[in-house]
């Protein structure tokens, strides 16, 4: 298949799922089946791109030129392809889970829900294959708008308020800061194309580099760098499939993916390293990692705890960029995959517990592990991967990040990563621990609960298995990503 055709298809398929969802809103099986078909087809189209282009960077294909120099253009490069595979693959899993969850939970407005969901995936594909910052920014905003109805889905006062926080922070940072950064970049470089080695070297110097980086780093609100992280816990009012795919994978990863793209292809890692413009970002990311882990410790609501854990883990990736070393960037990129697989498992387990027992707080989950063993084992595996223990995927990305910190000569950062791992242990393991080892405190009989429906426990079990598989295939992914750090 032609690459341009494949890219177009990978975006058209989710877009068509939006239409079929709205058309067949009253025929649930046909509607959900067609969406599943679209998800699988999207995944295969993306895999087809993988087999034909591998980890090379393809020619840019320009859809149209909006303003001279500003093009809506797409291409395939390793980082984007990895993101596309990740998002489209996990879309299948989450869609299956979503059908089970939405039906099992008697949620309303399935058609609107899945339509917005597909629309979000459409924008993610646009982000993944964007060939310049303009295109990326466009889809970045579309992603925000398409996920807003998902956050507000329940329509309760809490949902409306959460959605308001979600939108105001994401739109506020992107229009208020990122847009200025993008236009500034355009006005000094005359282009926004993602280019190996960056496009800014020699065109900007002194404190302006750090200011521009700050506009990007805070402007990319989806990366949830403190102090612009509040939207992520706020988004947890959404139904769990949304939290699982969008707020553990698609949306937040779109954020750090943008951060990686900006670091690698706009500034250039070497340029960042020589100007030392990213040192402050490194410290801020480190603060973000530790602070949000500590906050996670205090949260009793499981989804809130996972949300703060996500904020912390996203900052790992920002840290990888800010270290401005090859290993750091590589570790950050690998962490996109590893964290995605781990965190989606955890969220789907949280949803599974909710469907089966309607419990949301960790303190109420004592003893549930015996009633729902698969869910809790999957949760344990996911936790261990996030913590970064072998033989689970998460261990490799942390390893590379630590090497990156060592390369940069930032020994404190190694300490930060280690402390963070310990904090991860402290806030994640008790969940599975309480589930398995504690007795149910009050008179309630744990045996009255049983495992959630197959469509709900199956997907997290699958992704938990994926965490183990990733441990053995991390080398392949690393080799696949090598071109992004190769000298231009």
């Amino acid at each position: 298949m032609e690459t341009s055709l494949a890219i177009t298809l990978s975006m058209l398929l989710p877009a068509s799922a939006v239409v079929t969802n709205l058309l067949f809103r009253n025929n649930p099986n046909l509607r959900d089946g067609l969406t599943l078909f679209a998800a699988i087809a999207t995944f295969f189209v993306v895999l087809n791109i993988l087999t034909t282009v591998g980890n090379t960077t393809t020619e840019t294909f320009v859809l149209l030129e909006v303003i001279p120099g500003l093009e809506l253009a797409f291409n395939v490069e390793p980082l984007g392809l990895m993101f596309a595979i990740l998002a489209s693959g996990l879309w299948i899993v989450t869609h299956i889970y979503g059908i089970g969850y939405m039906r099992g939970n008697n949620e309303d407005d399935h058609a609107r829900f899945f339509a917005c969901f597909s629309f979000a995936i459409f924008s993610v594909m646009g982000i993944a294959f964007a060939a310049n910052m303009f295109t990326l920014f466009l889809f970045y905003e579309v992603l925000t708008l398409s996920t807003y109805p998902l956050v507000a889905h329940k329509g309760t006062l809490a949902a409306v308020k959460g959605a308001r926080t979600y939108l105001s922070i994401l739109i506020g940072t992107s229009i208020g800061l990122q847009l200025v950064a993008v236009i500034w970049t355009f006005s000094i470089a005359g282009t926004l194309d993602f280019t190996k080695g960056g496009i800014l070297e020699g065109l900007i110097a002194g404190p302006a580099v750090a200011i521009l980086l700050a506009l990007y780093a805070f402007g990319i609100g989806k990366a949830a760098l403190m102090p612009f992280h509040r939207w992520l816990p706020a988004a947890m009012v959404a139904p769990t499939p949304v939290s699982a795919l969008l707020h553990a994978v698609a949306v937040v990863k779109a954020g750090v993916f943008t951060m990686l793209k900006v670091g690698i292809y706009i500034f250039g890692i070497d340029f960042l390293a020589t100007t030392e413009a990213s040192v402050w970002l490194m410290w801020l990311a480190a603060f973000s990692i530790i602070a949000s882990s500590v906050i996670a410790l205090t949260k009793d609501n499981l989804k809130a705890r996972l949300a703060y854990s996500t904020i912390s883990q996203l900052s790992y990736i920002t840290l990888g960029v800010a270290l401005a070393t090859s290993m750091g960037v590589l570790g950050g990129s690998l962490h996109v995959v590893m964290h995605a697989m781990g965190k989606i498992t955890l969220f789907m387990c949280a949803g599974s517990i909710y469907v089966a027992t309607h419990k949301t707080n960790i303190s109420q989950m004592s003893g549930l592990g015996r009633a729902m063993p698969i869910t809790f084992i999957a949760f344990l595996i996911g936790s261990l991967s996030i913590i970064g223990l072998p033989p689970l995927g998460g261990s490799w990305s942390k390893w590379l990040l630590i090497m990156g910190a060592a390369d940069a000569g930032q020994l404190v950062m190694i300490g930060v990563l280690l402390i963070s791992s310990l904090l991860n242990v402290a806030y994640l393991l008790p969940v599975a621990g309480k589930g398995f080892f504690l007795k149910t405190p009050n008179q309630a009989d744990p045996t009255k609960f049983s495992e959630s429906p197959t469509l709900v426990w199956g997907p997290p079990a699958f992704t938990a298995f994926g965490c183990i598989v990733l441990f053995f295939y991390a080398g392949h992914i690393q080799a696949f990503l090598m071109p992004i750090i190769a000298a231009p």
Partner: protein
Amino acid sequence: MATQTTHHVAMTLADHLPILQVLIPFITAPLIVFIGRRELAWPLAFIASATSFLIACLLLSKVIGGGVISYQIGGWAPPLGIEYRVDAANAFVLFLVTGIATLVLPYARYSVGAEMPQRTQTLFYSLFLLCMTGLLGVTITADAFNVFVFLEISSLSTYVLIAQGSYRDKRALTASFNYLIMGTIGATFFVIGLGFLYMATGTLNMADLADRLAGQYDSRTVRAGFAFILVGMGLKVAIFPLHFWLPNAYTYAPSAVTTFLAATATKVAVYVLLRFIFSVFQPAFLAETSTLEIIFYPFALLAMFAASATAIFQRDLKRMLAYSSIAQIGYMLLGIALLSETGLMATILHLFNHGITKAALFMGVGAYALRSKSTFYIDLQGLGKTMPWTSAAVVIGGVSLIGVPGTAGFLSKWLLVQAALEQGYWPISMLIVASSLLAVIYVWRLVETLYLSAPNSEQPIREAPLSMLLPLWIVALACIYFGFETDITLGAAKAAAQALLAGSSGMMH
């Protein structure tokens, strides 16, 4: 032989396009009254405006590359005779005015039918065309006094059109009267300014004026004339502290009238302002008199923030949009103040993009007014479910108003920020995006009201009729279309900006 004759006629017609542009609605307006049949009024008005739109398209296609068409009325050569001149700047505005009129009329058919008694409807269409004639004349003429004449034609008909809202709400009468007073003061100031210029130069043709003014920038008469023109036109534009007539006029006018005025009237006034300060006076004159620093920057920024902040606290959607319009005019003034090609392009592009965006929004409001009988937020609750098509189009308009990428509103804001950065005014670029964020607040308040609030009324509310939905969706989709396809808009804006920046030499043939 026959073909030759046809060819000859066609040639003549093509040559007369500039005058036909004004003449067709001008003649149809009294024709409608003379015929006096209500069922014929609408078709005649529509044919006239569609023909005008066609002419505007032809004119724009001729000058978009940077050309100029000069038409001498009655064969009297300027500066003695009245000249019509079409270049990219005003052809683009003609395109906007006629295009919006052609879309508003099908929309008006149902909306006017519901909002006005039958006996006034015939006169309404006649007045509508008259108002359009005025706006087109103001735009196309190259004679300064002729601008005043057409301005009065459009203003007088506008006062009556606004007053038609009194069948729905009596406050339309005071709104109209208020506008009458303010508008007349504006027009008087404008004509006093022209008088001063005439005193100094003895001519009224714009190119001739520019020529003769060149040596007299120190003259107090000329400076006073400039000040009068600026304030007079500023009232029509609704530059921030001169905007008091606008919110009530927009709120209480019939929906179709509000849509037409919001999308065209202030835009035409902005064009006249551009024409006077760049072509009749020179950009250098602006610098010399510090007009930009004293008037444009502060009032543009004030409008962007004060009017947006006021919009946030409105309880009536129509009034909210009116305040948002005042804020958006701030952007256009800012583009002028930046005094660069990119800045002017931003102004001209925004003039168009904001025109279609507001048209979409006000058409949506009209649909709500029709079905829900009110435009207060409290009565709009939950309409996203009952009027899905209207609401979806309104959301598209709202998103374009914010300037989200992929919409027309985004491109003009992009250019504006870029223009500010080019000049090194990064605080201004931050202010532009900051005021966009205020737009997020007021637009999102609307979205939450429409989609996330429980319906307030017991009666079932139906979707708006197709004849209103269709024009609404055409402009809504135009908001997206012109967010990607920019050959027409950006091409015209670029040619216009270049011509304007060339100063009076841009007026030469």
